[in-house]
């Protein structure tokens, strides 16, 4: 990406050269680019792990990997996809787009921005190092699932758990700094005239997401600190022998974990809220209801955590409270889906790749939302708990939800980033293969889950064989079609049809008033928003 920008804008865009440009960067665009590439690389790493899992599950019985290694794959796949792909992906988009959307010259805290990015390679280097050591026969990598329940991760955790704990601490610090930066930027650096209620929805969703991050990442840091102390310093937070309680772990973890899932989906809502109006060539329907819906989802996310724990033996009153509170989330989420559909209603729609991904998101995320409603019914959840139904649900909202929206965002904004149009044919091919492959992959999981196939187990009963074989075929289609995406991105960076400043006919917003590619320093003079 850098080469192209330099070539065309060297004469008025002075920027550092060589590796130092990236190591010491304080430029929001360069840091955004690094976040996005980091997320992309991790996407392939985590995806390769998913393919190991699916290949093992192609047939019943044990074929390819030992159960112990299978456990490490499910654990690291989850951790990498959540903390290494979705979150950095959205932070990268925020870095690139938030200053440009609000007319700011850069992020409020450019040096901290550099630090929050460069903590990530260290964090994931450490996590992946534990896997490399496991492959070299030096003990197991983390193998307790991405939720790292105690006592699996405390009493029974492998030695590498301490690597994992430190890695989570680093990721947490990185996210907290990123969130503080985004809040400070949005609160203080908006262009004159851009009141809060004139901010683009993407900025709004990130603003609220950043608050969620600040509220819950410290709790995650707290829970891994307790684990660390239980493991190494003789405390008994989660050990019944010393007066602790393993169920407490689940409460603290999910107090972080539930807002975390909204951290991963709210920016996706923001992306889709930018793309749908552009390609429907209408203003977004119900702007303020979108903002209030986002805020309500964020609030509700703090009071529903125990719906992950219906089977831990909660009193009935607790189950009912968490069940009803969870159902409430369907209302603001429904408002959002309604607004997107209404934005498209009677719009002059065209279906370029970003729009295809956005519509795919709305459709498939809603399926994931509906299965979420099924699971929030406490008595029914006893059947769904810890089965592949859960796996199907959260992959619909995270893979065909959050990941789809990141892909949509990349196609949507890459002409602004690089100055070149991407290959539309390849983009459409990528979309259709991903959408079809994704559904072949995740839809059968609903059926085997309802029939009782447990998650995180490398073997299964014979009656689940057909659907699992289907899912594996879908997984390979889904996985390998991402190579088209990679090829398309590289091809766009290297050249292609020149993009106009506005890029899309229906595009509206400050970022589209900048030249394509966006100059290294933009909005050094603040624009005025009417």
């Amino acid at each position, binding site marked *: 990406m850098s080469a192209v920008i330099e070539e065309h804008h060297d*004469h*008025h865009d*002075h920027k550092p050269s060589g590796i130092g440009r990236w190591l010491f960067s*304080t430029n929001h665009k360069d840091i955004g680019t690094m976040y996005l590439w980091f997320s992309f690389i991790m996407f392939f790493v985590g995806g390769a792990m998913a393919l190991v899992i699916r290949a093992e599950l192609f047939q019943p019985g044990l074929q390819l990997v030992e159960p112990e290694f299978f456990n490490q794959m499910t654990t690291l796949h989850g951790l990498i996809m959540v903390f290494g792909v979705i979150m950095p992906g959205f932070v990268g988009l925020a870095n690139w787009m938030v200053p440009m959307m609000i007319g*700011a*010259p850069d992020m*409020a*805290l*450019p*040096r*901290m921005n550099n630090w929050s990015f460069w903590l990530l390679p260290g964090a994931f280097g450490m996590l992946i190092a534990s896997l490399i050591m496991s492959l070299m026969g030096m003990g197991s990598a983390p193998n307790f699932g991405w939720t790292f329940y105690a006592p699996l991760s405390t*009493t029974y955790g492998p030695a590498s758990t301490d690597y994992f704990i430190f890695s989570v601490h680093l990721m947490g610090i990185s996210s*907290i700094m990123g*969130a*503080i930066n985004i*809040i*400070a930027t949005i*609160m*203080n*650096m*908006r*262009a*004159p005239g851009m009141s809060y209620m004139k901010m683009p929805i993407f900025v709004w969703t990130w603003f609220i997401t950043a608050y969620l991050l*600040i*509220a*819950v*990442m*410290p*709790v*995650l*840091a*707290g*829970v891994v*600190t*307790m684990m660390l102390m239980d*493991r*190494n*310093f*003789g405390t008994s*937070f989660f050990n*019944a*022998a*010393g*007066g602790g*309680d393993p*169920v*407490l772990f689940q*409460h*603290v973890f999910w*107090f*972080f974990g539930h807002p975390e899932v909204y951290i991963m989906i709210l920016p996706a809502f923001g992306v889709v809220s930018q793309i749908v109006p552009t390609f429907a060539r209408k203003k977004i329907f119900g702007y303020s209801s979108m903002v209030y819906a986002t805020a309500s989802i964020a609030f509700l996310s703090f009071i529903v955590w125990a719906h992950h724990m219906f089977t831990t*033996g*909660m*009193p009935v009153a*607790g189950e009912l409270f968490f069940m009803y509170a969870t159902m409430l989330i369907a209302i603001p989420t429904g408002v959002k889906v309604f607004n997107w559909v209404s934005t498209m209603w009677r719009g002059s729609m065209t279906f370029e790749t970003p729009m295809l991904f956005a519509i795919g998101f709305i459709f498939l995320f809603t399926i994931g939302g509906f299965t979420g409603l099924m699971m929030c019914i406490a008595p029914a959840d006893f059947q769904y708990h810890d089965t592949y139904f859960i796996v199907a649900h959260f992959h619909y909202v995270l893979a065909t939800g959050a990941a789809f929206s990141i892909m949509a965002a990349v196609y949507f904004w890459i002409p602004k980033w690089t100055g070149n149009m991407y290959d539309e044919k390849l983009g459409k091919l990528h979309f259709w293969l991903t959408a079809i492959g994704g559904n072949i992959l995740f839809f059968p999981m609903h059926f085997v889950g309802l029939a009782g196939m447990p998650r995180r187990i490398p073997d299964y009963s014979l009656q689940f064989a057909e659907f699992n074989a289907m899912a594996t075929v879908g997984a390979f289609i889904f996985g390998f079609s991402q190579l088209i995406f990679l090829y398309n991105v590289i091809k766009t960076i290297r050249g292609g049809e020149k993009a106009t400043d506005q890029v899309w006919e229906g595009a509206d917003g400050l970022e589209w008033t900048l030249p394509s590619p966006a100059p290294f*320093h933009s909005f*050094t*003079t*603040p624009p*005025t928003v009417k």
Partner: protein
Amino acid sequence: MDTAITCAIPQLYNATDGEVRAEEDNKVTSHPNNIEGVNKNSTSRVITRLMFVVVGMFGFGFAMVPLYDVFCDITGINGKTGDKVTLAENMQVDTSRVIEVEFIASLNDSMPWEFKPMQHSIKVHPGEPARISYVAVNRTDKAIVGQAVPSVAPGRAAEYFQKTECFCFTEQKLEPGEEKEMPVIFVVDPQLPDDVTQLALSYTFFIKPSGASNSTASLANNSNQEI
């Protein structure tokens, strides 16, 4: 314009976070719409406030530990029974009701003792003190300290089950080959809800790693070896 940007911007961006110095401020803020100038102070204010939230939430994570215990105590969920109580003198014996109390003994995976109640169950009137015993045997060749953790089912009855004497109040040490009878004196509160006719009292014995209270290093070693 070119030089203005190339000079002003790198300095601006390379200044320490939020500490844009005044002269650089002026270059940028000479624009009619001054964003940077206003923001210097408000940015550090925002950061300070947010850092308080971060520290506060980190503390809240730890505060959940005692909060969780208090919550379980109040609601009696988890079957957690209360600590030692002195028997209220004026507790009326309710002879119209008979409660069957069953006794369960279990051992944590790593605990090598034998442990069982001396009677399967007894019938008591609410308000009437009862004395029963458990027995534990250490058949290994080393002394082991154990801690019993009690639990009462159904959970909502836990707060009505009161122990005046229990081996679970203290650690128990058994020498190699020692057998020990351990009494429990309890009374069922007459306030026990009417629909509860049966209670189960269960104890789980956990091994107490030797020297746990004074040496963290040995604990780490022990927990690796024994648990």
